[in-house]
């Protein structure tokens, strides 16, 4: 007892801090009133779902019976017993590693190239490059271009010119699927990041270039590396977030292109696997485990890229 009595008692100080915090919250009542409408729905439809997914991932749940706790079983099954999931991980990895950086660089380089054009020309080219990302379902036009019969335009031309003698099954042949899907996703990838980069380039102080030329910057590439990129680092960081998220979410566009499931699962991604178990098989616990793995992978990828970019030009 006496030892306990000698120990410092944190309670009053803690209570005091809590009380001052509460005063602070009461003083800022109006701020919470402004935040509340958005905040409630954001928590309900974005924050809570992540927590629910984590919780459900440790259960067996088919939406008919109440969830049953199974511990790590879903995760063990995912990594040890589900061959299709491992294919999906491999495809997602290949897909993200190619389309993520490529779409990011495309956004940056096209924004950079149109930056010095006359404002009117720049506006037209901005629209031209941005349009595919907002054209809704129009990307399905690619399925007509690559249709597997002689009415498919690519096959039709190749047959007509005598390059091939039978149509190529572009969107069902595992050898062609992945490259074509990557092309289509890159085609529609000049979205928000592209606009952010255009704006970032416009915002750079022009006198820095004049100073740079005096200091011995000789050509565009040096100018880009020493002046332009370091000046637009905030936009580069934000663009990276958008590009990475997009490269993972793009699986939503892959499925209408190659069908579900794709031949030999050649274009099967983690997102497709998630939809399979969540929307078709109703194994919600297992699907939640897939969602959690996807979440952790994406956030980890984001953190790594942010760390690399923050060192840019230092």
């Amino acid at each position, binding site marked *: 007892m006496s030892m306990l009595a000698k120990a410092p008692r944190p309670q009053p100080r803690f209570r005091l801090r809590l009380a001052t915090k509460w005063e602070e919250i009461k003083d*800022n009542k109006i701020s919470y009133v402004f935040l509340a409408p958005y905040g409630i729905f954001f928590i309900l439809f974005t924050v809570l779902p992540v927590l629910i997914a984590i919780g459900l991932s440790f259960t067996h749940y088919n939406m008919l019976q109440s969830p049953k706790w199974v511990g790590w079983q879903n995760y063990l099954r995912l990594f040890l017993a589900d061959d299709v999931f491992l294919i999906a991980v491999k495809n997602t990895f290949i897909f993200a590693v190619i389309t993520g950086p490529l779409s990011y660089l495309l956004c940056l380089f096209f924004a950079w190239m149109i930056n010095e054009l006359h404002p009117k020309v720049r506006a037209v080219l901005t629209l031209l490059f941005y349009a595919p990302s*907002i054209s809704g379902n129009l990307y399905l036009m690619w399925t007509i271009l690559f249709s597997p019969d002689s009415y498919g335009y690519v096959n039709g031309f190749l047959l007509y010119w005598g390059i091939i003698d039978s149509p190529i099954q572009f969107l069902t042949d595992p050898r062609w699927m992945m490259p074509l899907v990557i092309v289509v996703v890159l085609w529609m990838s000049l979205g928000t990041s592209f606009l952010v980069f255009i704006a970032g380039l416009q915002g750079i102080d022009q006198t820095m270039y004049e100073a740079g030329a005096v200091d011995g910057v000789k050509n565009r590439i040096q100018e880009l590396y020493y002046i332009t990129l370091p000046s637009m680092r905030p936009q580069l960081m934000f663009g990276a977030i958008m590009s990475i998220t997009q490269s993972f979410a793009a699986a939503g566009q892959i499925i209408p292109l190659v069908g579900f499931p794709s031949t030999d699962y050649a274009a099967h991604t983690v997102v497709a696997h998630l939809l399979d178990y969540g929307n078709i098989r109703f194994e919600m616990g297992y699907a939640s485990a897939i969602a959690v793995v996807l979440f952790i992978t994406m956030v980890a990828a984001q953190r790594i890229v942010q760390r690399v970019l923050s060192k840019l030009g230092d």
Partner: protein
Amino acid sequence: MQIRQKRLTRSAGGDFIIFVVLFLGGAFSALPLVFAISNAFKPLNELFLFPPQFFVRNPTFDNFRDLFVLMGESWVPISRYLFNTVFITVAGTGGHVLMASMAAYVLAKHRFPGRDLFFAMVVLSLMFAYQVTAIPNYLTMSALGWLDTYAAIIVPAWSSSLGLFLMKQFMEQINDSLLEAARIDGASEFHIFWRIVMPNVKPAWLTLIILSFQSLWNETGGRFIYSEELKTLPYALNQIIQGGVARAGVGAAVGVIMMIVPIVVFVFNQSKVVQTMGAAGINK
């Protein structure tokens, strides 16, 4: 191609390379769009020519006429699908712009406990794909009894995180002394928000309108809407396309109609959108 100002660091060879790359990139970007427009005006016999023709030779409005005939035959009147899409788009966009702006104002200009934590969660939410939250959201909708109602589409659209992020970053540019002056004059926070902040961030709320419009305009209702009379225009048009090979021309017409609207909206607001994006950096 007109270069704005000649600089010492510019070479003619570099200009030429940039011109070639832009030309090729532009052609690649435009190809499916031009192809869709061209196909939409092709008569049936031209759609199935061998060797195929990329461009239309005898343009016709047959495909658009067929589309309207097919629409007239649909079980639920097409005007109902159109109403659903317009209603969802207007209600979702309006709510999003208002709520996100209110939240963005206090996140940008007030200091209060939890502010940084909340904004960090918003930035984190930009980092993962929407598919992560799909299953719990379905369960939430089910628990709230919102399945098969407009609310299942509209309410989540209110809390889109990209809109809040862009708005908050843009509002940070507003000069604090402007707000202080109004406070000294005894203006309420609502007055400051509505009369001072909002008129100053017009490019940002136009951008939010456009981004929200783009996603809701293409909303098919997906897993949330089952009743035919609550389905949206993109859903109805997709059904028409799925009529098979004979609908290839109509399908292209549908694609063109759905594409035109967001593109036209963007064209008229392009400079405002780019201006807003300029503020959208992340400093670490």
